[in-house]
């Protein structure tokens, strides 16, 4: 009994000492949950590299405080595990921010945690519109399917395309994309003749290609999550003669993400996508970002949309720390302080929409072309100030 009491007293004293210790210069920890191993390991790698590039460019301190990133590996979409890791970060590591989250379910799972602990959560990727509705402490610096699809569907309608078919992976973001495409394209006078939902684990896309061909559409809108499936889909499109038959191929830029371009090869040439970032974006800031990345990691092969998602996410976190004036972070106030914040990013101008807490940004129309012997997404048109059209629309 006395021993327990003594331990408890010691513990309390130790805890108090810890709490009182860092008064002037604190270390502010940011917990990053993302896939660092496994099939989606590239995503985590791009996050980490972008964070390191940002810290190399802007320093590791804000005011008197040092910003430290703590990484947790979540190798695939797993909400329960995401919640457990995030809780561990909050309780054991005492992080002031949560960040990362590649998949929608993983991001959604932490809503009750961040509300209870009053911690801001900066999403670097997860792209379903509904996420930021679930907690006022979410801020997102990536994109949504609605955001990318609406300008693309408008562009397709303007090109005089009347009949189109949509082919999406059968899961959250895919259904967002399908809904966004159908709504927008039909509003502008087009007809969606068939909506194909493909199983997430498909390997053979020949049957879907046959269906697209039989539908008699002039163009196809396709969305699949970046990875092996997009590669097989894009290849199947050109291999089964659809490309030769003159059917036009459009989709969000996940289809031609930069790390996959070398493997796609010439099959990707001419594919038109809409997206928020291309490695080939022509701006001084992007050139500096890409150059620094090359200097630090020796290659720019993996620089892609998730890189800028993380890069800008870190920028927002730095700003929140700055606005708080150092020391302890009040989550709700910190999020409040960045609402409406505008800045220039490697991808172009960004603003955090005060309502959706999602970035309003320029969406670019790109075509895959060869630049100096290397395949790149070359920007053709820009649609500035695109908000998240899906906020409180898509269910």
């Amino acid at each position, binding site marked *: 009994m006395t021993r327990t009491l003594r331990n408890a007293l010691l513990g309390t004293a130790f805890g108090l000492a810890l709490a009182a210790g860092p008064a002037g210069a604190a270390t502010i920890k940011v917990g990053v949950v993302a896939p660092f191993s496994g099939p989606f*390991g590239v995503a985590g790698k791009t996050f980490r590299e972008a964070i390191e590039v940002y810290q190399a460019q802007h320093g590791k301190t804000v005011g008197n405080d040092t910003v430290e990133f703590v990484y947790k590996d979540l190798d695939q979409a797993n909400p329960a595990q995401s919640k457990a890791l995030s809780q561990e970060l909050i309780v054991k590591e005492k992080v002031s921010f949560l960040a990362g989250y590649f998949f929608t379910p993983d991001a959604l799972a932490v809503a009750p945690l961040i509300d209870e602990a009053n911690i801001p959560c900066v999403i670097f990727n997860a792209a379903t519109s509904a996420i930021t509705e679930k907690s006022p402490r979410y801020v997102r610096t990536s994109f949504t399917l609605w955001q990318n699809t609406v300008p693309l569907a408008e562009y397709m309608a303007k090109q005089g395309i009347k009949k189109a078919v949509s082919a999406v992976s*059968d899961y959250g973001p895919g259904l967002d994309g399908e809904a966004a495409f159908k709504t927008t394209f039909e509003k502008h006078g087009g007809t969606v003749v068939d909506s194909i*939902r493909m199983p*997430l684990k498909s390997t053979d896309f020949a*049957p*879907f290609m046959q269906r697209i061909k039989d539908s008699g559409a002039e163009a196809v809108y396709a969305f699949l999550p970046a990875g*092996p499936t997009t590669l097989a889909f894009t290849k199947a499109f050109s*291999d089964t003669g659809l490309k030769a038959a003159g059917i036009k191929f459009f989709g969000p830029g996940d289809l031609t993400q930069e*790390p*996959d371009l070398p493997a796609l090869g010439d099959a990707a040439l001419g594919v038109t996508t809409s997206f928020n970032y291309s490695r080939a974006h022509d701006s001084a800031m992007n050139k500096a970002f890409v150059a620094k990345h090359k200097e630090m990691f020796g290659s720019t092969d993996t620089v892609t949309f998730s890189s800028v998602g993380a890069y800008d996410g870190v920028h927002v976190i730095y700003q929140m720390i700055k606005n708080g004036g150092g020391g302890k972070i009040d989550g709700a106030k910190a999020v409040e302080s960045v609402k409406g914040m505008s800045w220039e990013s490697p991808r172009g101008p960004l603003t955090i929409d005060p309502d959706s807490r999602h970035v309003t940004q320029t969406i670019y129309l790109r075509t895959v072309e060869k630049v100096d012997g290397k395949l790149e997404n070359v920007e053709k048109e820009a649609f500035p100030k695109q908000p998240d059209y899906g906020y409180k629309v898509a269910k």
Partner: protein
Amino acid sequence: METMFGIAVDGVAYGMILFIISVGLSVTLGLMRVVNLAHGAFAMVGGYVASYAAQTAGLSYGLALVVAVALTVLATLPLERLLYRRIYGSANELAQVLLTIGLTFVIVAGINYLFGPTLKRIPLPEMLTGTVELGPKAIPTHRAFVIAAGAATLLGLWWLLERTDFGIRLRAAVDDPAMAAALGIRTERLYLATFALGTGLAALGGVLGAELLPLEPYYAIRYIVLFLAVVAVGGAGSIFGSAAAALALGIVDTAGKYLIPNFGEFFFYAALILILFRWPHGFFKGRAA
């Protein structure tokens, strides 16, 4: 009608790719009684070697294919000596599963470390790109090539196992190892050769099927279920059974995806369940080849 024909052609092409990759597993599982879950990993190693040979070393597709098969066999032969030899025989099933799944994880991690997590491809020669017209249906030349290669593999294996001395000895060694050994058949060598045949077929399938099952470090785990399904339906050890199973599953899967895409993989697994319900040991259980 045109649609039916299209589904049939796509289904056969998909089925043939499944066959080429799975038949090696059928050989090790049926003839050597080893549940080799590392089969997918061997196929992946073959694919990566071919990719490296073609892209970095600049070999032609055909040469890269030969090098990949040869190197994969060479690399896995020590595994037979050191590991697999200890787990032969149906009494060791749990040990087989544990050992081979562990081996798979090691290979996945090794490939990830050496080649990185991004997709790798094996560039096709000019001859195999583009499409060929089959009546009203255009299919990629590469798939036509795979169908032909699959048919050749089928005939070659049948001839090897049914018509050669090697085949006769092998079947004797499988049916009654003690008796075969007593008759002077060197079963150890025979097993080594069969193991090499199995991994060689895996590597061949990994290379030829790379267009459909893209190469990435998790290939080994992602697709092993497909291969096991083909072998289970076909009956372990039966070459024609594997071919029939792969074609049936390929066609059912293609038709299901075309007609009702929302159902996803439903038809593939429904067919699997129904077939196994009717023929619990697969199509051709009990025949040697």
